[in-house]
């Protein structure tokens, strides 16, 4: 057997390798920039490209407000999902929670005659309850999150059918529709304002409160968090509850937008939310989930869709674009990070 190179021989070789290592260092910095800012660069590139190609339609205030308005529901539900991913879990029920919430909020108002100011908070509370239940199943009963949240979601699908079997008196009050159509401040649509408020609250919780720091600790190293005296299960349950509230809010806003409670209306938000959150994890930080990143993720998809529709691309391009950009962005940033370390 041949002796392998020792430390001494490696040290002898290093002075000659000085120039090479400088070059390598430069490459490493470039890779770090790519892995952290790649998604932002991509977003900017899309905006610039669309502006050049369609200056009169794309680069207008109404179009921008339109993009934000369309993104706001996804952003809210995705921000909630971000919270569960921060603590190292995930929630597959959010789309179904949103659909279910959208049904019952309309039912409460139109059929049961509850005042809107009571019905909406009640539905958000139910969302929190559903999330907490998932959290309880995952942490205390220790059911795998895939099974627990898929199970809860499937139950909600059935519950939605059961609920809508009773005819809902046609027509929701105009004030309910106004939640999403109103533009009280500077003509900015309500959903954008709601999104800003929700994201701001979640950002503050995650970054400025001890609860948020504990959530990050749980996601960072659960055993270390536990041995630091953090009540890991409670922290996780809070994250699930938050995801539930955000999903219920998205469902409520969607029903307001549609003017009715529709079965399975919000199911599709599940995949959009996951796509946005994972795009966001490849933004600014190394694979960590965070609110600002999630917003960037949502915007990338929204701007892309907007561009596709302005240029009249057929609808089937939308899912292709969504899937491709997700795999591309997350894949590239993972690769860049790996090579930056090596």
């Amino acid at each position: 057997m041949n002796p392998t190179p020792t430390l001494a021989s490696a040290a002898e070789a290093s002075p000659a390798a000085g120039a090479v290592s400088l070059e390598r260092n430069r490459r490493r910095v470039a890779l770090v920039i790519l892995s952290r800012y790649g998604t932002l660069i991509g977003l900017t590139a899309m905006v610039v490209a669309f502006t050049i190609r369609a200056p009169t339609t794309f680069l207008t205030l109404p179009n921008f407000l339109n993009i934000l308005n369309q993104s706001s529901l996804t952003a809210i539900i995705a921000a909630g999902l971000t919270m569960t991913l921060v603590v190292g879990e995930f929630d597959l029920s959010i789309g179904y929670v949103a659909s279910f919430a959208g049904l019952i909020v309309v039912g409460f108002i139109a059929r049961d005659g509850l005042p809107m100011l009571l019905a909406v908070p009640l539905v958000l509370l139910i969302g929190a309850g559903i999330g907490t239940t998932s959290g309880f199943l995952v942490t205390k009963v220790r059911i795998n999150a895939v099974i627990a949240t898929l199970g809860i979601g499937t139950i909600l699908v059935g519950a939605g059918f059961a609920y809508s079997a009773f005819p809902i008196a046609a027509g929701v009050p105009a004030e309910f529709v106004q939640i999403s159509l109103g533009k009280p401040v500077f003509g900015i649509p309500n959903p954008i304002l709601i999104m800003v408020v929700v994201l701001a609250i979640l950002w503050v919780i995650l970054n400025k409160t001890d609860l948020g720091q504990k959530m990050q600790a749980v996601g960072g190293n659960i055993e270390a968090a536990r041995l630091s005296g953090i009540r890991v299960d409670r922290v996780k349950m809070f994250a699930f509850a938050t995801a539930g509230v955000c999903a219920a809010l998205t469902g409520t806003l969607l029903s307001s937008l549609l003017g009715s409670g529709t079965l399975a209306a919000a199911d599709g938000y599940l995949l959009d939310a996951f796509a946005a959150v994972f795009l966001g994890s490849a933004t600014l930080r190394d694979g960590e989930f965070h609110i600002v990143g999630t917003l960037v993720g949502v915007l990338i998809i929204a701007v892309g869709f907007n561009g596709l529709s302005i240029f009249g691309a057929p609808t089937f391009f939308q899912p292709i674009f969504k899937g491709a950009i997700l795999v591309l962005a997350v894949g590239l940033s993972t690769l860049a990070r790996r090579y930056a370390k090596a």
Partner: protein
Amino acid sequence: MQSESSSAWLQVRGLSKSFGGARALSEVDIDIHRGEVHGLVGANGAGKSTLIRCLAGITAPDTGSVTIDGDDVRISQPRDAEVAGLAFIHQELNLVPHFTAVQNILLGAPKVTRAGIINWKKSRKVAYAAAERIGVQFSLERRVEDLSVAERWLVMISKALVRNATMIAMDEPTASLSDHESAQLFRVIRDLSRDGVAILYVSHRLDEVLELSDRITVFRDGRVTETAVRGQLDKRGLIRAIVGREVIAAVRQDRKATPGTEPLFEAKHVARGSAVKDVSFTLYPGEVLGLGGLVGAGRTELARLAFGADKLEAGSFELRGRPLQPNSVPRAVANGIGLVPEERRSEGLMLEKSVSYNMNVAVLRSLRSVPGLPFLSSSKTRARSNRLVDQLQIKTQNINEPIGGLSGGNQQKALIARWLTPGIQVLFLDEPSRGVDIGARQEIHQAIRDLADRGVGAIVISSDVEELAALCDRVVVMCEGLVSGEVSGDEVTEQNIIELSYAHLQTQGESA
């Protein structure tokens, strides 16, 4: 006893292996004869396991050769070892729990085939023959998960025999066996040895090694320091060979006498599973109490119990005379108990997070800007971090850099800093200077003593007897889940701690 070393069946020559800068094996020569029982002893990290891993083809040595019957053999993967007739039984037995004993014995073994189709009937006969050879009494059709540990060992030995092993290495075979089961295993070992199967017997239980072995090889710091034939060494001599010195003077002169004050923290007959059987000890304020013993003695498990990380099965803990119950980590922390865990990276650090974050994660509530509101004060956070970085001389560019970039010693200091709060009363430190350079080690020791000078009770778990002798006022030694003794004052010497660490048979006899 067999013949001269020149005719040894297996010869290892000049085997060396380094991990990073650390030499795990250095120019090791060892001979194994056909049919001998060969004991391997040495302290933790002396090189026994590395030798076994090299022979098993799990670790590739840097230099050295292995010959069997005079032929060079190259063992670069586990399969090579198997072909060479070497079998290895590690403590965590590699068995498939829901397979039957016979399925496990035949798993991966060459089976009797005809035209490529396995002849199960004949294959099973081979398995049964092997089991019969070592006197297996239980049914081989039972699932392994339903078998006792002793029975699983017999399954592992049968598995080795089916593969025509000429040497079987056993790592701590009696660690979880009763006295009766151990005696049964010893009979099997002697029978095999008579049949010409060599046994490489690795154990901390020196009495067993002395009783069974035809020859004993002692490892220290990666070298073979002694090779003795049966009868040449007694237990005392073996311990001397393991430690390398006879008597070591007490290093610490300013050791505090056993304080006459009220106890700060007490363990009363605490127990959990087979790791912690019945442990009582008392800690006084301002004391550095060592917990000595071998790896696996139950010390880490004891610390986790005291910290509420695992559930107590019997006994109780008391803090200043008041019982600590129910046990949970948040409750322990609220009571001023801290733990610096043994596994720094997996149980202590959030590697991607900043130095500051890692130091503050256990005391977030105290860093709120207004008590009662959940918002953190960045100025309080920064102030605490900077103060602790100065106090513990943590070498870091910036308190906001990821802690993963710091050296092991500085990471460890940050973990100690995590618990430096006004309310801390008892701090457990599990292997506080493992993988830490000598300078940082002294700074860590100083930090522990400073803490004790402030009235905190520090409990240091260490497998490094030198560290215990240098640092502690008093040392409680554990052995297999029991307290095997306690030394204080001038009795805190390496020799005394080691003797108590190897006190197996005495304590077992007494408790039985």
